């Protein structure tokens, strides 16, 4: 009894220790970079106008707020450069693009899985288009969709669509035949097999591919915002450079890194919570 009671508390204390150690390395790792940066700046070894040390651009958030927050009275600055608007705009684009891209990819992959003719007709093209970096689609996107959400969403879409389509077909082909045969023996129709066996079996795999391509998609949106789409976090960074306000640029970069990191953490949590059977499934 006593042993049984001790086990959970010990496990949680171990987890807490692990968390502290892990957090310690994070702080140390980031701290070293910031430390070197601050010291070289203090010693005058780098040009602080081009590379403002962290304490400076973070401390100046207040001064940058005119660019970062929608404030009445700052009429000279268009409202959509505000940071929350900017974060929101970038996030919206990347999430809509990921959603549309995944849906289209699963649809295309499923069609290819069932219709050999469709696969033979489309897959050579898809395989050729897959290696094109999302950023390389930006010129086309801006010409086709103009300088707005459409272009940025399109960049995310193509960034995820081709790779995920290939992954969908590949995962479907690799679903353990035992699962399919089991369902067939139990009287499942083709549609029921698709819905109850193939989709759940490939889902964890697709999520991994999605997560691996997420950073590329996130970068694609930012690049699109820098080049043509004049709103969002990417635009904030470029604006800082154009006004020779490197504090704004670095602040924008810090926010981009933080938001991207948090999104990845979020996807990781989702993966663990909802798609936990990956380790058990032989996909």
């Amino acid at each position, binding site marked *: 009894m006593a042993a049984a009671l001790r086990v959970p508390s010990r496990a949680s204390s171990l987890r807490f220790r692990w968390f502290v150690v892990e957090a310690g390395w994070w702080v140390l790792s980031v701290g070293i970079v910031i430390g070197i940066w601050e010291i070289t700046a203090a010693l005058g070894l780098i040009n602080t106008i081009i590379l403002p040390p962290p304490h400076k651009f973070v401390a100046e958030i207040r001064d940058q707020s005119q660019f970062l927050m929608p404030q009445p009275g700052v009429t000279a600055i268009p409202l959509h450069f505000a940071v929350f608007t900017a974060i929101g705009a970038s996030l919206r684009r990347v999430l809509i693009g990921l959603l549309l891209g995944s849906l289209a990819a699963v649809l295309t992959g499923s069609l290819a899985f069932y219709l050999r003719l469709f696969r033979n007709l489309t897959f050579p093209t898809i395989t050729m288009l897959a290696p094109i970096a999302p950023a390389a689609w930006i010129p086309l996107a801006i010409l086709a969709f103009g300088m707005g959400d459409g272009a940025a969403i399109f960049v995310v879409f193509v960034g995820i669509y081709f790779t995920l389509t290939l992954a969908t077909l590949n995962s479907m082909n690799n679903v*353990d035949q*035992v*699962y399919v*045969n*089991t*369902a*067939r*023996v*139990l*009287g*499942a*129709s083709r549609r*029921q097999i698709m819905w*109850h*066996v193939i989709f*759940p*079996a490939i*889902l964890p795999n697709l999520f991994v591919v999605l997560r691996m391509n997420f950073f590329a998609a996130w970068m694609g949106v930012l690049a699109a915002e820098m080049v043509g789409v004049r709103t969002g976090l990417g635009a904030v960074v470029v604006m800082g450079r154009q006004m020779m306000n490197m504090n704004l640029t670095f602040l924008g970069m810090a926010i981009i890194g933080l938001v991207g990191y948090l999104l990845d953490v979020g996807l990781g949590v989702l993966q663990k919570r909802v798609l936990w*059977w990956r*380790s*058990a*499934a032989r996909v």
Partner: protein
Amino acid sequence: MGEIVCTNVTKVWGVGTTREVAALENVSFSVRHGEFVVVIGPSGCGKSTLLMLLSGLEMPTGGTITYNGEPITGPDADRSLIFQQPSLFPWRSTIDNVAFGLQLRGVPRKERRQQAEKFLRQVGLREFANKHPHELSGGMQQRAAIARALCLGADVLLMDEPFAALDVQTRFHMQSFLLDIWLGSGKTVVFVTHHIDEAAYLADRVVIFTARPGRLLDSVDIDMPRPRNVISPDFERYRALFVERLRSEVTRAFQEQELAEMLDTRIK
């Protein structure tokens, strides 16, 4: 109910390719209603192929197979196939795995779960209803797979080395468990194994296959009351008989397998 008749059944895998492999050749035998038949033979003798054909997952390339007098045209929940590998869906809880067949038939959730729970109790897994397969041991997973087949009211259980992946003790336990389920149920069982003791312990009749291509070598009725004592002279006698019948075949299968590996003609 539950009668299977194979007449001159032949199965060639990969017909029309360079990797043609004859798995079964001219196999004729029948399984009576309610009979427990164990099929033994050297590895690669087409035992698993036979079950694929009996379940209707695959069609023979020659000959006919009938079930209750009707030719088999495809899978049927009446004849359930239980695999050696764990076949529970890892994304479903145990009870939802057992109820899966009923779900496919459109039985409402509450009703099918009640039904599934009944069979989970029969296989002793009631407390594990809401666990997921990875939380169950290998033996438990196979019991759940059996419950899944029973839940659909299968008259025939086709079992493809279902206990081969289990450790010796669990395996022995599972064999008694299967007999408990089967005795008095009127269900027909076709059970494939390469394990001689398992065959002698379980079967009403043991069907022995030759090495590839699988042909019927012998059919031996086991005339021992259950529960069988595995260290009795009778048991020894059957064991010796099977060992003797299989020895030359196993040697042949072994040589052939080595040759096949050299030629790289194996299909799996």
